[in-house]
């Protein structure tokens, strides 16, 4: 059985960048032959966080900003599962930013796909943490006076082991990034420039088409942290997409002693009585 579209049609606006992400996730899971029963897609809140509903897998459509900890719990409970986290820039780089950094430094094997449209869409157009400085929105009528967060640089500095950026207008390129991110053993980020056609009149498809170039096309060395950091700072006339950085490190699951005998979800519920007795004796019995 392969992952299919669910019977629920996406609720996104026509032309929304998130359709490309859905397609990329669907094709990646199919190419990797992941059995949908072994896939869990976790999201938070926002337009993009509706994504799990549009695929035929297990999923949790959670609460705003908490998709990563929910997914971390799933993965720690059963590391045989393929666990994806999908959401938006408000969810992941705003209200949930802390969890993103902590998941990266844990190098837990989650694939984090952020549909970054640089605006709050579902709440009808307020400034987002990735909106460019001086962007005028409903909540910043005279222009935002905050610098945008840099998710690529943050991921690199926090220990993520696969750091990439895609563009919804380059769907084949995006699908490759997503597929490799899922394949990667460790915490992976795919930040996707996913235009909001309804509320972001600045960062449009044509805005990006004029600026994006692929790192692969310029022989970028994804093994170099210094090179990746330099590229992560580039945003202006040219915007790089592709794989910034990839490295192999032990994952949290591999280093966690409690997981040595396999996934927790597959352990017996009933404890060995002997273990429990030893548990008491080790520190509490007033024994001789």
């Amino acid at each position, binding site marked *: 059985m392969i992952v299919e579209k669910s019977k629920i049609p996406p609720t996104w606006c026509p032309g929304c960048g998130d359709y490309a992400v859905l397609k990329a996730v669907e094709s990646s899971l199919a190419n990797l032959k992941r059995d949908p029963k072994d896939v869990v897609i976790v999201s938070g809140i926002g337009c993009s966080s*509706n994504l799990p509903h549009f695929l035929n897998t297990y999923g949790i459509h959670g609460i705003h900003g908490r998709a990563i900890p929910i997914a971390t719990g799933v993965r720690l409970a059963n590391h045989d599962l393929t666990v994806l986290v999908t959401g938006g820039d408000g969810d992941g780089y705003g209200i949930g930013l802390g969890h993103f950094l902590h998941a990266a430094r844990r190098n837990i094997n989650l694939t984090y796909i952020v549909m970054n449209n640089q605006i709050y869409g579902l709440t009808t157009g307020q400034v987002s943490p990735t909106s460019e400085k001086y962007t005028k929105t409903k909540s910043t009528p005279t222009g935002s006076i905050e610098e945008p967060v840099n998710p690529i640089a943050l991921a690199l500095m926090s220990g993520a082991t696969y750091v990439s950026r895609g563009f919804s207008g380059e769907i084949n390129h995006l699908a490759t990034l997503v597929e490799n991110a899922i394949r990667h053993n460790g915490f992976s980020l795919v930040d996707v420039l996913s235009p909001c056609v309804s509320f972001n009149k600045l960062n449009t498809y044509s805005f990006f088409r004029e600026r994006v170039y692929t790192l692969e096309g310029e022989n970028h060395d994804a093994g170099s942290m210094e090179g990746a950091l330099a590229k992560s700072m580039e945003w202006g006339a040219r915007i790089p997409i592709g794989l910034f950085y990839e490295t192999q490190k032990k994952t949290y699951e591999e280093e966690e002693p409690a997981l040595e005998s396999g996934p927790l979800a597959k352990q017996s519920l009933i404890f060995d009585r002997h273990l429990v007795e030893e*548990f008491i004796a080790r520190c*509490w019995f007033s024994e001789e």
Partner: protein
Amino acid sequence: MAGNISVKIGGAAGDGVASSGETLARTFVRSGLYVSAYNSYQSVIRGGHIYFDIRASEEKIYSAGRRFDILIALDSNTIDIHGGNASRLIYDEKKVVCPENCPSSRLPIPLSEIARKISKNPILQNTVALGACVKLVGIDFAQLEGVLKDTFKEKGEGVIAENVSAGREGYDFAEKTFSPIPHSLTFSGKKRVFLTGNAALALGAVGAGCRFYAAYPMTPASSILHTLAAHSEKCGILTKQTEDELAAINMTIGASFAGVRAMCGTSGGGFALMTEAFGLAGMIETPIVVVVSQRGGPSTGLPTKTAQGDLNMMLGAGQDDFPRAIIAPLDVEDSFYATYEAFRLAEKYQIPVIVALDFYLSEHFETLDELRFLAPEKRDFTLLDSKRYAFTENGVSPRSIPGQEGLMFIASSDEHDEEGINISDVRASLPESQRIRERIMEKRMRKLSFIASEMSPPSLSGDVDADLTLLCWGSTFGVCREAQTILADEGIKVNILAFRYLFPLVPGTGEILSRRRRILGIEQNYTGQFTQLLTSHTGIQIKECLYKYSGEPLYAGEVVTRVREMMR
């Protein structure tokens, strides 16, 4: 002659009060006595004033006390604060000043001088005092020696030898210098478990098949994390200190969704952060157990002092209505069983369940006779229906977990239909969706009456027809029991109605209340949060109350005084 022995050790943080207290308490336990011990500390790492109370008897002890046979004063401050409540005073005259008017009999010992002969470590003076104390009570030195060997086994033979000789010196000094304390205790040497409420709860979680525990450090819940972490590898329980309480509860939900019995724990401040996700568990019908160990509030409040003031928050946590259960263990032993029960209820009804402790219950020690390990109930994830949120009679729907063939579903925090499909966006307010919304709300809420019917009524101890009923919940039960005994000796008959299940209330609670002649509501908060809950559910007003919110544990004497006034 006294049927029990009580000792208080006081000093500043950093003096080793808690570890010395624990050593002495364990010595009493090992001699075969029932012991209750309370570690009172402050939110400071060095300095201030802290103390450790021990009460020991041949009978089970249910609460802390205020009078002491022996006060071990490691600083002058301790005598100023507690000198008036102690019969005897162990102190070092060279370091500690005992005022002229202090009524206790003085047992000065050159503690630091003796300790210095053995080692440069000044803390060793405490062990000298413990040795003297053990001799005064008449316990064999071998008992103290055994505890010292266990306590310091990780630190090596040298530290053990120093402590054993310091204890021996103190013991011999007391033997030569002081007369023993008269009492009627015999030391049976019977083995018993000696645990705090938090440790009992952790053990209960292990027994219940908990495989995942997440927490952010917060007093007084932190020692649950420490205890489980220390045994994590051996028992296959994954313990995770998270970046905040939001992560702790959300990870717990994720782990449970994936099929693992999962728990998180915190105090009131952390639970305030968890409330949104608490509602998520209610909405997606994922079982979780949340431990809330209360301390004085509001806000940061009294981090190291006890209270029962977070009940209203537990009752109201999360948006709108969804079913939950709240169990408040009555004592240390009950913390073990209540945790079992919390897991069982959470899983059976697919709801979030709170185990409500308080600082006193979490952190004080009690001796327990035996813990029965009940086997967790077998779980069945076989789907009977193709709909994850199928409308059923008791509101509980078939559940599948990832990796399982059959039904894959999306657990959605948005309102959804029987299959889990959102009715909140393109289907919102359609006539069909309104009906679905009503029916799924009713399905979830239906669980409550089934949960309530499983809960046993509050225990009534004492004469059914007593003139006065002490109504309490959680850890104040022990205090009421002790007060009941004292009052009985004075010819005042009271019974105790102790609530363990705070929510949902058992059917018939109104009748149980209306059968009482006169009720004194006892709680450790300002407004009587549980009494108010009872009134709102039953219409019965409980007008007389004893609400304590100083942060200190409730003492039996306070209940006795109040009852005497009422019965006058």
